[in-house]
């Protein structure tokens, strides 16, 4: 069944969209990752204009992260103070990102920047995950417990220290502020929540307890993606609510099965699989940049001046 997307201005098969939503939902339920860094490239591969893919995906992540935050909040796993500081940075970062996005779009370089960002980040995350899971599988899971003490002296020398009771930390507020800022920029330009960057940074740089990391990052992502949705709506009119709702319906169904399957499989094998998928997508994106295009010319509507 074909459905016409009003903002993307294209006709696509409804079941393909639902299927894609549920596959990404399934994967995010299974691996406990946000779907943005998988869904945005999927949409771009499908032919959805990159700008619409980014704006719409931000909108979808609002829904997904609210559901996640509520679940973690019930278990008391959200550090609201830390999250709040990160939100402040995130709002500023997403504003900068949205401005950059518009400038790049006018210059005709936004597709390039989105693609290069995905190649870099997907490649990096995929390689790290593959390496991590290969290391653990080879040692047959004997020691996954090298959690080093945090010895970032320069980090502890920074000013504006704040006490975060929930995380049991007394650190400079510049750190969560800066991390929030960076994720904000990424969210605006790539249409991702940024959990893949935020979660390792919160564990290894801030030294937050793992129990509160996911809930807190989702809390920040909720506000940042809401801001990105608003900014892209105002600046570019590239948020397709119909597309977002269709993807979301698929994702809700997929995530249920994903969580169930994920509980039965071995973590390291799972992570290895996800790593291969992520690397495959990075390669696909890279091919678009490196291979000689069939047509050297592209046509797009005139944006701005």
């Amino acid at each position: 069944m074909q459905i016409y997307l009003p903002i993307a201005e294209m006709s696509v098969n409804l079941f393909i969209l639902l299927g894609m939503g549920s596959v990404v939902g399934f994967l995010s339920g299974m691996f406990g990752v946000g779907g943005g860094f998988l869904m945005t490239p999927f949409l771009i591969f499908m032919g959805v204009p990159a700008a619409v893919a980014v704006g719409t995906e931000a909108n979808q992540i609002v829904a997904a992260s609210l559901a996640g935050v509520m679940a973690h909040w019930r278990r008391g796993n959200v550090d609201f103070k830390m999250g709040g500081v990160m939100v402040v940075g995130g709002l500023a970062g997403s504003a900068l990102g949205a401005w950059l996005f518009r400038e790049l779009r006018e210059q005709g370089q936004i597709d390039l920047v989105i693609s290069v960002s995905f190649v870099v980040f997907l490649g990096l995350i995929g390689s790290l995950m593959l390496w991590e899971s290969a290391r653990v599988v080879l040692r047959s899971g004997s020691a996954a417990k090298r959690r080093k003490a945090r010895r970032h002296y320069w980090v502890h020398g920074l000013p504006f220290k704040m006490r975060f009771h929930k995380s049991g930390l007394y650190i400079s507020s510049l750190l969560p502020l800066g991390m929030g800022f960076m994720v904000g920029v990424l969210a605006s330009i790539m249409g991702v929540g940024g959990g893949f960057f935020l979660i390792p940074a919160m564990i290894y740089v801030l030294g937050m307890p793992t129990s509160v990391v996911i809930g807190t990052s989702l809390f920040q992502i909720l506000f940042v993606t809401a801001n990105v949705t608003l900014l892209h709506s105002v600046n570019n009119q590239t948020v397709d609510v119909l597309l977002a709702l269709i993807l979301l319906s698929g994702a809700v169904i997929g995530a249920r099965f994903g969580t169930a399957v994920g509980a039965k499989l071995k973590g390291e094998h799972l992570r290895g699989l996800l790593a291969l998928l992520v690397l495959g997508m990075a390669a696909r994106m890279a091919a678009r940049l490196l291979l000689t295009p069939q047509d050297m010319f592209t046509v797009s509507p005139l944006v701005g001046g």
Partner: protein
Amino acid sequence: MARALTFSFLFALAMPFSPALAQPVVADLSSHRVAITSSFAGEDIVLFGVREGGGDVIVVVRGPPQTRVVRQKERIAGIWVNRDEMAFSDVPGYYALAATRPLKEIADAAFLADNQIGPDRLQFQVMGDGDPAASETFRAALIRSRQQNGLYVVGTGPVSYVGGILFRTEFHLPAGAPVGTYSAVVYLLRDGELVGFDTTPLFVTKAGLGRAVYNYAHDQPAAYGFLAILLALIAGWASSMVYRRA
């Protein structure tokens, strides 16, 4: 209707030829309104008409004028990057052409060029300080891209005669057809001379939910943004409730 009349009036003024006969050719469409609804996947429109006293018929359907940027990729450090660009205005959002015989046998080159009959005879305006000499490859690329998207079609449904004086042709509006006012112009030529023409409008609009969403997003972008967030919050909350119960 008033709009249609104004349109044909303007067109008559713009025509370099004044028709000698009162309506030697009359044409109409199977439908003057195409609604792009949520289930829109393209539509076929039938054009039919009557001609008086023989001759050849050329049918041209033009979509609303648009502005487009064409960019040329260049390899920089192994990566294909957009470099040179050129902006055009007066680019028809849609263009379909059909005729009873090959154009060259019907009309001379001057007539075809003057009336922009055939995609390669379309006159786009170069915007800004673009070099008109270099514009040719960009113009060709724009036409090529539109042909690939099914927006510029030539002779898909050739004009055929039904019992001598009646003629009909069909053209396809693809799913990506732009909204706006289209015009279908029918030229009647005899021995290379224009003996009459008729023009009839076609209105392509978004309809239903899709129209509401599109208009709201463009007319009230901030309110639309808040609505998008609100919808996402409701959906997220609802899915969270579903999980909790399960």
